């Protein structure tokens, strides 16, 4: 089974992905991103999403957690990451294990 890859984000961050062959869907605000995601969720298997858009869409993105596909990956945009990755790891760890096994030795 082959699937297509797509990226949703603001224009500047995603242009370079376009050149690399990933299909791009520009969106600058939450509502637009939600609309696009809803539309492309069944067609694309891997969807990249920039952090700025992912933050307000938290609940909406949870619905993708039920099934293996599509895989939605949140990536930092050209304005840099806002710690989403760390946040995500922490919450997953808390839910599954109840303890922090990754970040406690760094403090």
């Amino acid at each position, binding site marked *: *089974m*082959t*699937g*297509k*890859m797509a990226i949703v984000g603001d224009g*500047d*961050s995603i*242009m*370079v*992905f*376009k*050149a*690399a*062959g*990933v299909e791009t869907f520009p969106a600058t605000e939450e509502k637009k991103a939600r609309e696009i995601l809803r539309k492309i969720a069944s067609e694309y*298997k*891997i969807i*990249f999403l920039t952090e700025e858009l992912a933050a307000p869409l938290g609940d909406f993105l949870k619905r993708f*957690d039920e099934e*293996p*596909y599509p*895989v*939605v*990956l949140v*990536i*930092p*945009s*050209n304005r*840099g*990451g806002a710690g989403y*990755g760390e946040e*995500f*790891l922490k919450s*997953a*760890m808390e*839910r*599954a*294990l109840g303890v922090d*096994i*990754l970040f406690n030795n760094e403090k």
Partner: protein
Amino acid sequence: MARLNVNPTRMELKKLKARLATAVRGHKLLKDKSDEMIRRFTVIIRQNKRLRDEVEEELAEILRQFSVARSVTPAYSAEAAFSMPTVAVTAECGMTSVMGVDVPEVKVVAEERAGGLPYAFSEITSEADYSVGRISALLPKLAELAQIEKTVRLLADEIERNKRRVNALEYIMIPQLQETIKYIRDKLDENERASIVRLMKVKNK
């Protein structure tokens, strides 16, 4: 602990004993499953963290490089140069199972570039070439990260659900059954004593 609402008969006792045996066995199995899932989860989440750090670092650098390239190129020509990609990446999507949880397995398949970059070298600065090349090289890693993060999500959900099941068995189901069995046994014994006493009384008359 509340006991189940059943008639204190031998029939019920037999049924409940069977249920208790099943519950205990199920509890043991689920507990083992939970332990193993947690072990796998810790491995995967460590991997996730490492990969995430790598990818974020690399991506930030690429995007920085790319925005330099953008800033020295007029917007319209950049737009034109990048809007016609010569490659199309697809992903080979499979499924594997981690402890009975279906998780995605992704492999990026990049079709060869027909004639290199999607634009002429004279149009765009060399920074753009580098960043496009690097992002292409990064795509498999991004896909891998996507796969691992999804696995972490799915596994975390499953662990949570499983934990709830184990707890329900351990703290509700099993004590309830044990208590009910004890109640029925007491009741049956009581009945037996009562009938013996009755027989003795009858005999004495």
